[in-house]
């Protein structure tokens, strides 16, 4: 499965980049996230509850940040396993300074899915992923509003 998209944040690049390094913020923004723990600067452990059509299960996994060029870009490597299968993915995220304290986030990525998730949920994965990203960005917008714009 391939993913691609972009989103404009109303905040300077540094602030947006920092938010992406905050497990608290990400933990709140990703729907179904039950636990997100920072192991060190580039490693996180998480437990995520996912629902794709008739398949719903918890996935526990790791998130690794590599090729970090703050505040320009970062590569995310995700590996998750659960009763309903596994997910392995990589995402390339770029942050562009649009001036006027706005940042354009661009992302592309690829995920391999296996197990029950793939065998009965394949058809819906794309739309579920799109919907998930939409929710994540909406939530992050709110978090930015609370944290930065109000300060």
């Amino acid at each position: 499965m391939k993913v691609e998209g972009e989103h404009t944040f109303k905040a300077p690049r540094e602030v947006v980049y920092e938010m992406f390094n905050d497990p608290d913020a990400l933990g709140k923004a990703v729907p179904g996230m039950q636990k997100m723990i920072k192991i060190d600067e580039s490693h996180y452990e998480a437990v995520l509850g996912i629902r794709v059509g008739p398949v719903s299960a918890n996935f526990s996994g790791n998130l690794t940040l590599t090729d970090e060029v703050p505040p320009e870009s970062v590569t995310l490597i995700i590996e998750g396993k659960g009763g309903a299968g596994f997910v392995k993915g990589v995402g390339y995220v770029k942050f562009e300074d649009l001036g006027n304290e706005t940042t354009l986030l661009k992302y592309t990525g690829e995920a391999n899915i296996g197990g029950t998730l793939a065998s009965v949920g394949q058809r819906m994965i794309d739309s579920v992923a799109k919907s998930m990203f939409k929710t994540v960005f909406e939530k992050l917008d709110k978090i930015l509003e609370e944290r930065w714009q109000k300060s």
Partner: protein
Amino acid sequence: MTGKYFGKPVKRLEDKFLLTGNAKFIDDIQLPGMLHAAFLRSDYAHAKIIKIDYSEALKRPGVVAVYTAEDFGDFWKPGPLQVPPPTAIPGSKFNARTLVPIAKDKIRFSGEPLAVVIAESRYIAEDAFDDIIVDVEPLPAVVDLEKAWEDTSVLVHDDLGTNLAALVTQESGSYEEAKKQADVVVSKRMLIEHVAAAAMENRGFVVNWDERNQELTVWAGTQSPLTIRGSISRALGLAESQVHVITPYIGGGFGPKVMSSQADDVLLPWISKQLKRPIKWIEDRRENFLATTSERDQVHHCEIALKKDGTILGFKDVFYHNTGAYDSYGMTVPLNTQTHTVSNYRVPNFYTQIRMVFTNQMVVTPVRGAGRSEGIHAMERMIDFAAHELGMDPVELRLKNLLKPEEFPLKTGIIGQDFVEGVLDSGDYLGNMKMCLDMVEYDKFRKEIQPKARKEGKRLGIGVVAFTEGTAVGPYEGVKLTVSTNGKVTLATGYSSQGQGHFTVFAQIVADALNVKVEDVKVITGDTLHFAWGAGTFASRGATLVGTATHLASQKVRAKIFATASKALGVPEDQVDLCEGSVCVIGKPESSIPLGTLASMANPMRGVVEPGVEPGLEATAYYGPPHGATGSGACAVILDIDPDTCKPTIERFVLVHDCGTVINPLLLEGQLQGGVSMGIGNAFYEKMVYDENGQMVTASFMDYLMPLASDMPKKIEMGHLHTPSPLNPLGIKGVGEAGALPPPPAFAQAFEDAFYDKKLELLESNLSPSVIFSYLKKAEGE
């Protein structure tokens, strides 16, 4: 053979039980103290197993035991080759890698069993999956057939050094010579896509080890109870007489239930013996898709060489065949492809090569059609492409090359799945085609209906194809016929039933031979205690082999009846007749003895029995043919295709079929209609898809679509020819798979005809609207 029942549309004896919920299927078997098994299955298609830790699972209340490959010790071993290798074919290469019962060290397909959980209920057993930690090292998956043939960088079986499962080349005549004489040569690469049997009932297995009697009883949703019995006896070191296999009513077979899956039928008996408890396992639908066998999935590189008047000089077919991760079922499927490619036509030079490849998918074994579909598809499509090239009507090209009745019996020079050279025994292929063209009103369609439709901007197309069905192959089947002392008759056979009407069809033969009511004949199938010899229900062999054995046994019992009656009535044998459940003296109806009484008399409790006389009115008979009998037919379909959505409406569907002598025309129609629904499914709806990681992405009915009532044509118009087979006394040929064979190539031809101006060349078998749409887009782009 004529009689009160033979050849008549006798209603089925088994229906009243099935209709009222009184027929026992595998999940209906309940035994006291029964435990439930569930298989933890691999998510990964290809991986090295590092560790499976089930210690937490054992702590869960209700879990009785968990087993992985290591726990079975020496008992774990790769299963047997269910079908022998093709050593009968000179020059053939075959690498046997047989299905293992449970993954050990390496996972080779997504869905392969990793652990068996035994618990008080299926619900608890599946709960325990979450407790089991599986640690693997994923590997890239082998999925592309043509790539796998040459690429050795990723191997399904590391010790082989290659993914080549088999290489079998057969030739009659010389294709290269034929090509030299040809005016036109057409080459194409075609895909025939992966489908499932998807019977409405999934597989199941119930086993009970009786420690006191040292006996194992098994109920299995299998098409081959005797093979299962053999497999279990061998694996557990038991005598066959210690293993009793019973097939309950089965909700559809269609092929995959012939295969020994090893996981349930080998491991569960061992576990039952260990735990001394009955064990039940019922497969769920997702497991059925992932880990029960399926079929098709071939890539054909075909070439046809013709003279410009349309005479076919030669045909060459090099095809890749996917056997999945193991090849326990040998070469049955691709050999059927080889024997069914040119079987309708006069093709004096035919070269065919199987390149069988291992992939990281579940094993491929027959699904209704069993390899024949692919051969027929390849040939029928190549004839269409040749017709386009020659500017000839596709029907004309067929009529020119179809074999004529006087050319039979015809030795094909190609060895088939039964390891003997194929002989086309009889048939009237031109007769089939002519009847089909008459029924569909071909001339009228071409001259009036289609031109009118085209003027109106409609996309109306016709497809007409021919097909053969090799049926009734050996090795043999048998029956035991017994007249009981209550006057009723029992026919026992090892040949099990999955809905074909065996309980009625064979009873008809007996009822006529012994002049009893068909309701008084009880057919017992698939119970090894009642009859312990046979091969299994596959390859459309029931009517022919069991029918003939029934006929032979009936004749033997008749002889015994006459001999016994002659003594009892005090008249010579030629004065004795069978009169509706009794024996009587011809001309003296008052002088009669009911058959039940005669049966008692045939089993004296005292006195002297002459040597050579067997007690009772009972006989056993076997029948094994010298080679298969070939059924044949023709099919025409008219499609009206919506030019915007590419969705077809089936305007007309004509099927002409010849299966020799017909035992029950009502049941014959049922078989053909059911086969057609699967064929239509294959043509439009059904496609098993694996992604590049070997993940099956169509493992439910949400994605794997099958025809519904509104999708089927309102009427499948049927025509029948009857050229009896010279191979057996009743002239029977098989028919179970016939309906499934013609639809895919017929629909492809109809689509191309409907979009004649776009000059489409449809090179794959599954023609869903999105596939047609993409071909149209490509055609417009040029």
